[in-house]
């Protein structure tokens, strides 16, 4: 919970920090669209490499960004396994037959017992689970003892493997891109940038300033609310809520005991924020002067060109069927 980085600004001084927020937002959109248009695995892998270069040149720790991916771990693994096991296009690259025999099943059950009792001591829980899962599969395919009840085959096809990797890389790229934006842009700048980028929507009577304000305040409050959540967890733990254990019913209770104070505190916070804004004469929709003016620099032009080049390359490649 403490390590969620989405939405958090970390001060720094690399070129990513000096760039105009408008540029960053537009380039982000261009690159995200590109990531969605790309259809081949090699291209998306190349994109990820490019992004790594940007991270290194921009002096952003890769570890930070990886931590940002952690909440998505489950989703990543789920899509990955889904593609691997259920996508049957392309060539067969791997196949194995699982034989269910009393001996084999017995060993597997033992293995899971072992997992159940040791899992609390292992730091990488998900990884441990996967290792045990794969180990039991391997066991069943290699070892049988006694009469075989039934068998099942696992087949992995080339396309499934490719798609699995592809989807994973795409998700990683998209999350990394948005992490870079919020990591390197002050909330106030983000607000200004969003406002500028959303300006065209004014023509269709959307209140863009308010939209921008809403988006940037939400982003700004994600880390604050996480801090609050941690405090609530402590307060409830001191009344005997054990967030690391419990049956389903207890788990529900634990979640309620976390969510209710969370909502109450958020409402209170937003109420206070509204009063504070009003006390400083903020009136929605009224034109406001700016303390900081955004300045466009040559660097921004370069970045924008970079984004456009990538997008057009991707479009061209897609048209010629890559």
């Amino acid at each position, binding site marked *: 919970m403490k390590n969620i980085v989405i939405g958090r600004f*970390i001060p720094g001084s690399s070129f990513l920090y000096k760039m105009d927020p408008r540029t960053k937002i537009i380039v982000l959109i261009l690159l995200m669209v590109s990531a969605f248009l790309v259809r081949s695995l090699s291209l998306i892998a190349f994109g990820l490499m490019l992004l790594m270069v940007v991270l290194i040149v921009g002096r952003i720790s890769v570890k930070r960004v990886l931590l940002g991916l952690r909440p998505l771990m489950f989703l990543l693994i789920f899509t990955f396994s889904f593609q691997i096991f259920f996508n049957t296009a392309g060539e067969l690259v791997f196949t194995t037959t699982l034989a269910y025999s009393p001996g084999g099943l017995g060993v597997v059950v033992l293995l899971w017992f072992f997992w159940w009792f040791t899992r609390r001591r292992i730091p990488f829980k998900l990884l441990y689970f996967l290792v045990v899962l794969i180990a039991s599969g391997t066991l069943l395919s290699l070892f049988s003892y006694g009469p075989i009840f039934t068998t099942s085959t696992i087949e992995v096809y080339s396309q499934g493997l490719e798609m699995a990797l592809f989807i994973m890389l795409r998700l990683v790229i998209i999350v990394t891109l948005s992490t870079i934006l919020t990591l390197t842009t002050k909330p106030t700048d983000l607000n200004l940038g969003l406002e500028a980028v959303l300006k065209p929507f004014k023509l269709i009577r959307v209140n863009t300033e308010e939209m921008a304000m809403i988006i940037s305040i939400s982003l700004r409050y994600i880390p604050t609310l996480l801090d609050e959540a941690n405090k609530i967890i402590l307060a*409830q733990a001191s*009344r005997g809520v054990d967030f690391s254990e419990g049956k389903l019913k207890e788990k529900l209770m634990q979640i309620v*005991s976390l969510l209710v104070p969370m909502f109450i505190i958020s409402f209170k916070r937003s109420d206070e924020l509204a009063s504070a804004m009003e006390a400083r004469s903020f009136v929605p929709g009224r034109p406001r002067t700016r303390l900081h003016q955004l300045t466009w620099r040559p660097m921004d032009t370069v970045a924008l060109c970079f984004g456009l080049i990538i997008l057009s390359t991707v479009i061209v490649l897609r048209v010629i069927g890559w």
Partner: protein
Amino acid sequence: MGIKFEQVNYAYRGPDGQKYLALANINLPIGETGEFITLIGETGSGKTTLVQHMNALLVPDTGSVTVLGVKVTKEAVAKKRIKLNPIRKKVGLVFQFPEYQLFEETVLKDIIFGPKNFGVPEAEAKALAHELIKVVGLDESYLSRSPFNLSGGEKKRVSIAGILAMEPDILILDEPTSGLDPMGRDELLTVFNRIHTTLNKTIILITHDMNTVYRYAKRALVMRSGYLVYDGDPQALFSRKNIENWNLETPDLLALQQLISSELGFKFPHTAKTEEDLLTMLEAVIA
């Protein structure tokens, strides 16, 4: 031994892994019974962090905290060698801000939430709640109200009742009287003092009010930027010079006595801790 800190260091971690040292080399023994300790120190000096170690909500980075015989270290917790929940039952901690723990529909349910988690039968917990709501200075009509429509002071009282209901062996209160009116404050302090004297329970109380320290504490701890800079008798603390350096001030009653001695040249046979005590002394003089 009740609670024992041995060379405890603790740092909060910022999002980028930066460390903010909040506790530095704390060594501190606390008796299982019979202590009335006040913990004082300027804002941000680490008081809350210190008490959150006492019921294993926070775990030391290095060093150990032994709570009622259970040795809490980072390693032991990481390997799940020890159970933390029993510690929290025995060492009750009332939080600084009640908003973080109130969540049930009614005050009654909120008060019995703690005991129920620790396996107390519901009927028993309810009976306790009816008793405790009066102890903390509210009447039984509050039990059916929603905790969210209460005033700040009322919320505070409900959250205190919620911890008292767990019947902890050691009671820790993080600024229990902030945001209360003077009458309410005195009432609650009397309650804590009564729990201390009748049940001989150890009480640890964080406060910014020197009068409370002077009146009730048997032992005072002073924190300053993560260090424990004073541990001892409150009387002796206030007779030290330069306590302003620790952002402390002389309690009213003591200041009054000092003023009388310096301006009128009056020698008190001993320094009075309560108004009644001072009055008897003055009456003796007049007579």
